C-alpha cells in the first residue's frame, strides 16, 4: 500500500461516491426512497467489488456485495461507453438482487477506451406489479406473484435508451412513472460518476487510479482482520426462528461461526429449506453480506474510521446451502425477506456473544414493519396507497449501553414520517404514537421499549397492511442473564371490542374503527439486579418503569421518586444472581418448542430434507411434522431415516391413490 496516497485516494473516491449518492437521493421521486433511503449508488472495480461506498446517504450495509452477478452476463467486448445494464432477477444475478423489488443498474466506465470500473446503483421500487400494491405480501409464495422480473438486460446501448425495456418497466408497475423517475435519478448519478472517474484519471493517470483502488481495499481488509483477530478462536453456534410460515411451523435459522486467527467462517447449514412464503432470499452460494451483517457491523463499530468497501468482507467466508431460506432457488418468493435477514443477523450476534469476551448485545425487537394503507379516493374513485409509518420496536440491551427505544439496530436507518404529514396524506387519524412503559426486557442494560401506534379510520373504508412483522410467538432472547423482550400485539377497537388479531396481513377498517399496534421490544443484557440504581431511578422518574417493578425485578427501592440507597443495598445483598444464569435467556414458549424439537434435530432434519428433490420437500416436510406429532420419540432418531421413511410412505400413498382411482371402465384407450 502507498502510505501517503492510500488515504488521499480513499477521500477522493469517497467524495465522488457521496456526491453521486446525494444527487440520486435529491432527485428520487418516491416517498419510500425518501423515508427509508432504500437505494444506493457506488463504484465497483472490474471484478465487481466496491471500492467506494457512500455512508452519508442511502443503504450503508451493502459494501461487501459484488455486482459480478449482473456484469458477468455481458462480456467486456460487448460493453461500450454509455451502456446501462439492468436486472431485478434474483435467480440469475448470483445474490446481487435479493428480491425483485430491488432494481439494479450498472454502467461500465471507460477511460481512454479501457474499462476502468463500474458505476452501480439500485433502488427499492415501491411497486413492480404483482398480486398486491407494493408487490410485497408475506403470504405470496412464488416469484410470479411478486411482479415483473427482468433478467440482465441492456437498458441503454451506448447512450441510446432501449425504449422497449423502459416501456415494459413503466407498464408493469402501479406507479410506473414514479419508478421510472427513480431510475432516471440513478442513471443521472451514474453518469456523474462516469464523468468524475474520467476527470480523476485525466489528472492522476490510470495507473495511479488502479493502484488507489487496490490499496484502499487492502487497507480496509487489514483493519477488518485486526478486529477478527481480537475475537476468541473457536466454533460457536446459535439458532433462532421466523414465525411467518403459513403452515405454523417455525422456520429455523442456524448459524455456526468459526473464528480462526484473523479469519472467520460462517455456516448456515442446517437452516430450514426455503418456504412457500415471501421471506426467502438469495445469496448466490458465496460470501454474501446478508450472511455476515452482524460481524461486518461489529468490525465497523470497532474500527469507526474504516473505509467502507469490499475489503471488509475478504477475511470472511460464508456459506448458506442452496435451497435454504437464506439461499433460495427459483421460483421462491422473497418480497418480505427483510425479517429473515434480521433473524440471520440475530443468530450471528448470538454467536458473537460467545466469541467476544464480554459479549455484545441481546436480541432486539426483530421486526421491520412497514405500515401501509389503501383507500378509494372519494373524488376520483381511484385507489390510493400510502406508507404510514415504519414499525419495529426497541433494540436489545448491549454490553455497555441500554437498547434503543422504538427502533431495532438492523433498521436503524428508517425514518419516521411526521404525524402531521401522515394525517394530510391519508384518511387516518393517529390516536397515539408513543413508547410503552415497562415493555422492555429487563437487564443490567435494558432493552429498547416497544412503540405503540393507534390508527383511526376516517374514510368509509381503509385497508391496512403491515409487512415485515414477526415476534408474535417467540420473544426476543436476553443475554448474559438479561430477560427476554416482549412480543408484538395487535388489537382492533381497543376499549370497545378488544379483538386481538395477531399478525396483521390485511386489516379492513370502517369509519371510526381503531387498529392499535404495540411492537415487540428489545431484550435485556446482564442480570437486572446489577443495573445501576440511578438508571432504574431514571426509568421510574420518566414513567418508563413503576416502583413495584423496580423493587421486584431490579431490587431497587424507590420512595416518592427518590432512591432509598440503604434499603436497596439490603435488598440487593439478599438477591445475588444465580451463578449460572445461562448466557442466553429464552422465553417459555421457545423452551417448550425446543423440548419437542431441539435445534440439533431441526438441523439434521433440514439437511436430510435438502437431499431430496426440491419438488418433494414441502410434502415430506409436512408429513414428517405430522408423524412427529404422533411419535415424538422419533425426534431423537436418525433424521435421514425419518425422511426416507416419509418419502417411501409418500410414494406408496401415491401408488395407492392410483389404485383408489382406477381409470373409468369401458373408456377406449
Amino acid at each position, binding site marked *: 500500500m502507498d502510505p501517503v496516497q492510500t488515504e488521499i485516494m480513499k477521500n477522493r473516491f469517497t467524495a465522488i461516491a457521496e456526491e453521486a449518492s446525494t444527487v440520486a437521493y435529491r432527485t428520487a421521486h418516491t416517498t419510500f426512497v425518501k423515508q427509508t433511503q432504500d437505494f444506493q449508488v457506488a463504484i465497483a472495480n472490474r471484478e465487481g467489488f466496491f471500492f467506494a461506498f457512500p455512508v*452519508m446517504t442511502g443503504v450503508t450495509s451493502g459494501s461487501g456485495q459484488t455486482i459480478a452477478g449482473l456484469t458477468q452476463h455481458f462480456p467486456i467486448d460487448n460493453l461500450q461507453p454509455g451502456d446501462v445494464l439492468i436486472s431485478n432477477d434474483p435467480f440469475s444475478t448470483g445474490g446481487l438482487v435479493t428480491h425483485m423489488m430491488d432494481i439494479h443498474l450498472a454502467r461500465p466506465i471507460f477511460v481512454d477506451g479501457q474499462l476502468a470500473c463500474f458505476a452501480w446503483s439500485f433502488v427499492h421500487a415501491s411497486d413492480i406489479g404483482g398480486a398486491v400494491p407494493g408487490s410485497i405480501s408475506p403470504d405470496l409464495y412464488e416469484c410470479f406473484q411478486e411482479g415483473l422480473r427482468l433478467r440482465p438486460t441492456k437498458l441503454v446501448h451506448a447512450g441510446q435508451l432501449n425504449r422497449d425495456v423502459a416501456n415494459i418497466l413503466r407498464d408493469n408497475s402501479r406507479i410506473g412513472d414514479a419508478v421510472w423517475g427513480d431510475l432516471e435519478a440513478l442513471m443521472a448519478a451514474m453518469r456523474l460518476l462516469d464523468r468524475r472517474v474520467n476527470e480523476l484519471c485525466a489528472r492522476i493517470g490510470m495507473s495511479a487510479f488502479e493502484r488507489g483502488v487496490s490499496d484502499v481495499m487492502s487497507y480496509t481488509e487489514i483493519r477488518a482482520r485486526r478486529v477478527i483477530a481480537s475475537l476468541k478462536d473457536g466454533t460457536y453456534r446459535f439458532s433462532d426462528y421466523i414465525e411467518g410460515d403459513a403452515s405454523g411451523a417455525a422456520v429455523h435459522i442456524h448459524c455456526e461461526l468459526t473464528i480462526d486467527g484473523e479469519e472467520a467462517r460462517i455456516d448456515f447449514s442446517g437452516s430450514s429449506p426455503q418456504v412457500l412464503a415471501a421471506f426467502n432470499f438469495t445469496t448466490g452460494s458465496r460470501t454474501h453480506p446478508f450472511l455476515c451483517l452482524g460481524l461486518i457491523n461489529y468490525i465497523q463499530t470497532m474500527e469507526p474510521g474504516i473505509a467502507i468497501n469490499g475489503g471488509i468482507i475478504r477475511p470472511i467466508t460464508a456459506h448458506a446451502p442452496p435451497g435454504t431460506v437464506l439461499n433460495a432457488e427459483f421460483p421462491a418468493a422473497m418480497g418480505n425477506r427483510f425479517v429473515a435477514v434480521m433473524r440471520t443477523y440475530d443468530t450471528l450476534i448470538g454467536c458473537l456473544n460467545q466469541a467476544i469476551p464480554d459479549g455484545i448485545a441481546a436480541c432486539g425487537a426483530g421486526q421491520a414493519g412497514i405500515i401501509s394503507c389503501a383507500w378509494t379516493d372519494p373524488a376520483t374513485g381511484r385507489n390510493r396507497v400510502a406508507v404510514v409509518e415504519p414499525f419495529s420496536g426497541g433494540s436489545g440491551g448491549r454490553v455497555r449501553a441500554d437498547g434503543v427505544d422504538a427502533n431495532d439496530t438492523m433498521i436503524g436507518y428508517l425514518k*419516521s414520517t411526521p404525524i402531521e404529514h401522515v394525517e394530510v396524506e391519508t384518511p387516518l387519524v393517529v390516536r397515539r404514537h408513543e413508547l410503552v412503559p415497562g415493555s422492555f426486557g429487563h437487564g443490567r442494560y435494558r432493552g429498547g421499549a416497544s412503540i405503540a401506534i393507534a390508527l383511526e379510520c376516517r374514510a368509509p373504508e381503509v385497508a391496512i397492511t403491515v409487512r415485515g412483522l414477526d415476534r408474535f410467538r417467540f420473544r426476543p432472547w436476553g443475554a448474559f442473564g438479561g430477560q427476554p423482550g416482549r412480543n408484538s400485539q395487535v388489537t382492533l377497537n381497543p376499549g370497545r371490542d378488544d379483538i386481538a388479531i395477531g399478525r396483521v396481513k390485511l386489516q379492513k377498517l370502517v369509519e371510526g374503527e381503531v387498529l392499535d399496534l404495540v411492537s415487540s421490544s428489545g431484550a435485556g443484557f446482564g442480570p437486572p439486579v446489577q443495573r445501576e440504581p440511578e438508571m432504574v431511578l431514571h426509568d421510574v422518574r420518566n414513567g418508563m418503569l413503576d416502583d413495584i417493578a423496580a423493587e421486584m425485578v431490579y431490587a431497587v427501592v424507590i420512595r416518592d421518586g427518590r432512591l432509598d440507597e440503604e434499603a436497596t443495598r439490603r435488598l440487593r445483598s439478599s438477591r445475588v444472581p444465580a451463578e449460572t444464569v445461562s448466557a442466553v435467556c429464552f422465553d417459555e414458549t421457545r423452551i417448550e418448542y425446543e423440548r419437542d424439537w431441539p435445534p440439533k434435530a431441526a438441523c439434521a432434519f433440514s439437511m436430510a430434507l435438502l437431499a431430496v428433490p426440491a419438488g418433494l420437500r414441502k410434502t415430506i416436510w409436512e408429513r414428517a411434522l405430522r408423524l412427529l406429532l404422533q411419535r415424538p420419540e422419533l425426534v431423537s432418531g436418525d433424521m435421514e431415516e425419518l425422511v426416507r421413511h416419509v418419502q417411501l410412505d409418500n410414494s406408496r400413498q401415491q401408488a395407492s391413490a392410483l389404485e383408489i382411482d382406477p381409470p373409468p371402465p369401458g373408456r377406449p384407450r
Partner: protein
Amino acid sequence: MFRIGVDIGGTFTDFAIWRGEGEGYVRIGSHKRPTSRPDLAQAVREGLDEIARHHRLTPDSPFLVIHGTTISTNAVIERSQPPVALITTAGFRDVLGIARLRLDKPVDLFNRRPEPLVPRERVFTVRERLLADGTVDTPLDEEGLVQALRAARDSGATAAAICFLHAHRNPAHEERALALAGAHLPDFPVMASHQVWAQQGEYERATLTLLNIYVRGLMDGYLGEIERFLAECYPQARLFITKSNGGIMSAAEARRLPIHTLLSGPAAGVTAARELGGHLGLDRLLTFDMGGTSVDVSLVDAGREAVSAQAEIGDFPLLLPVTAVEAMGAGGGSLIWLDGGILKVGPRSAGSDPGPACYARGGTTPTLTDAYLIAGYLSPEGLLGGELPLRTDLAEAAFAPAAEALGIPVVAVAEAAIEVATSTMMARIIPFLARQGVEASDLAMMLYGGAGGIHGPIVAAEAGMQRIVVPRLPSVFCALGGIVSDFVYDAIRVTHGVVPEPAAFDALVVELAAEGREWLTRQGLSEQITGLARIDIADMRYAAQAFTLPVDISLCGIAGAADAFRREHERLFGHSDAEAAIAIDSLRVRMIGRQDKPHAGGSGATSPGRDAVSRRRIYVGGAWHEAASVLSWNDLDPAVAVSGPAIIERDIATILVPPGFSARIGAMGDLDIVRKD
C-alpha cells in the same frame, strides 16, 4: 449612520467600523480585543469605549451596534441551561424521545438516539386534538392544561413550550393555552409553537419552540446587559442582532426569539462575502472560513446566500430557513498520525492546549500548523502581528517518527499530510455543493477567518477554481457582515394538501408580505430602511414525488409557478416532466428591509509598493522552491502581480499563492488570486 459590527469569537472579540454615509467599503475599519471570560460583555463594552474614544463619539452621538454572538449556540451544544418542559397533545408524550426514529450510525452496534433536550419526566400531555385541516376533534381540556402547567413548574422547569398537533394550521388551542397560562401562572414563561415557526412536523416544531425558551433566559440577560450599558453611556446608540438567515433584527426581537441567533455566527460571514462579491462582480462564491479546530464552508449563488431548510444545531434539527453552512472538524490543530503505516489527519485536534508542537506548549504530536511551518508557508518568526515565534525544530521532531516509519523526508510527510487534509475537506465540500446543485469549478473562493489563508488556496486549486479572493479585513469579516446586513424576515404558511386557488394563493402572499412589513416596522429603524425587497419561495414537488424543491416565484407568481418548478428541476437534475401533476407544500415569503451600505467607490489601493520582497524556501508540489517571494500585504504594489508560489503575510494571517496562480491587490483592497492560463 455610524455603525459598529461586533462579533465574539473564541479568542478575539472583533469589531468592524463604518463611519456612515459617504464612506466607501475600502474605508471600513477594524478593532480587536481578547474575548473576556466568563463575562463576555466586558470585552464588548471595552471595545466599544475604545472605538468611541478613537472616533470621538459622545453620549449624544447616534450610532448602531450590530452584534453577532454564539453564546446561544454554545448553550445548546453544551446543554448548559436550566431545565425546561414541554406540553403536548395526549398520545404523543414521546414526540422528543422518538424524534424521527432514524439513528445516525445504523451500523454502529453502540448507536443511540441523542438524549432529548427535555427528558420524558418533564413532558406533559393534555387532552385536545385538532385534525389535519385545522378543525377541532377534541376540545382543549382547560383544567388538564392548567394542571400540566403546574406540574411543569413544580418539576423544576424554568419555562415551558407548548406544541399541539396541527397548531401550524390552526393556533386556536395553543392561543387559548397561552391565555390560560397567563391567567393562572402569570410568572411562568410559556411559549407556543405557532409563535416561533409555523412549520409542519410536530417533532421539529416542538424542538424549535423548546430551543427558543431554552436559550431565552440567557440571551435576555446578556442582551439586557449590553442594552443597559448603551443606555447609560451612549443613550443615542441602538442595538441590533445578527440572524441565522443572514439578516439582522432588533435586540427586543432577539430577546423574544433568540432561536434566530443560533446559527448566526457563520451566517454573517457569508453575508459579508456576498456583499464583497457584489462589489467585485462575483455572484458565485464558495466561502471558506478556517479556524483552529474547524472549517465552515458556504455558498453564494446568483448573488444570494444558499439557504438550508434542514440545518442542525448540536443534536437537534433547526427547521428554519438559514444560511447553509457545512461545518467540518478540520483546522490548523488537526493531529497527524499513522494508522498501521497509513498517513491520517484528524479528526482529533490539538486544540489550543497544548496546541501544535511548534507552539512549544508541550505538544508532541504533529499538526497541520506544524506541517505549514516545515513546508515554509509559515514564518518561523510567527505571524507578523504576533508575539509567538514558531519552533521549526519542535515541529520537525514531532514529524520525525512518521518520517522514519514512512522512509521519506520530514518535509515530504508534511506536504503529504496537507494533501490528505485537502482530500478530507473535498470529501465534504463536494457532496455539500451537490446538495445545492453546484460544481466547485464554477465558483470563486472567498476565504477569511484566522487560519484559512494557507489551506483555502490549496483547496481552491484542487477543486479547479479559477479565482480566490481574500478580503481586506479577513480577520473581522463576520463583524463586518453585521454592518452590511439588511433586516431579513421569513414567514411561512403550510399548504400541504390544501393548496388554495390561485387568487387565494396570491392573497396569501400579500398577507405574508404584510406580516413582513409589520415586522420591519417593529424593528424600530424604519427611517433607516432605504428600500424593500421580497422573495417568494414555493416549496414544490411533483405530486408523486416526496421531496420538495424551493422555487423562486417572486417574478412569475403562482401563475408561472409550475413552469418555474420544471425549469428548476431541469437545472438541478437534468430532467423534468411537462405533464406530471405538481404540488405546493408551503409558501415562504422573505421580506428584506435594505439598509444604507458602504459604497464600492474609492480606491482600495494603499500607498505605492515599497519593493520589500524577501525570499524563503518553500516546499510545494514535491519540491523545494528555493527563493519563493515573501511579501507583506501592506507593501504590495497594486500595479504588480505576484506569481505563485509565493507567500503574502499580514497582521494575523498568512496567505499562500499556489503555483499556477498570481496575486495582486484588487479594487476593494482585497487580495485577488487568479489562475494563470
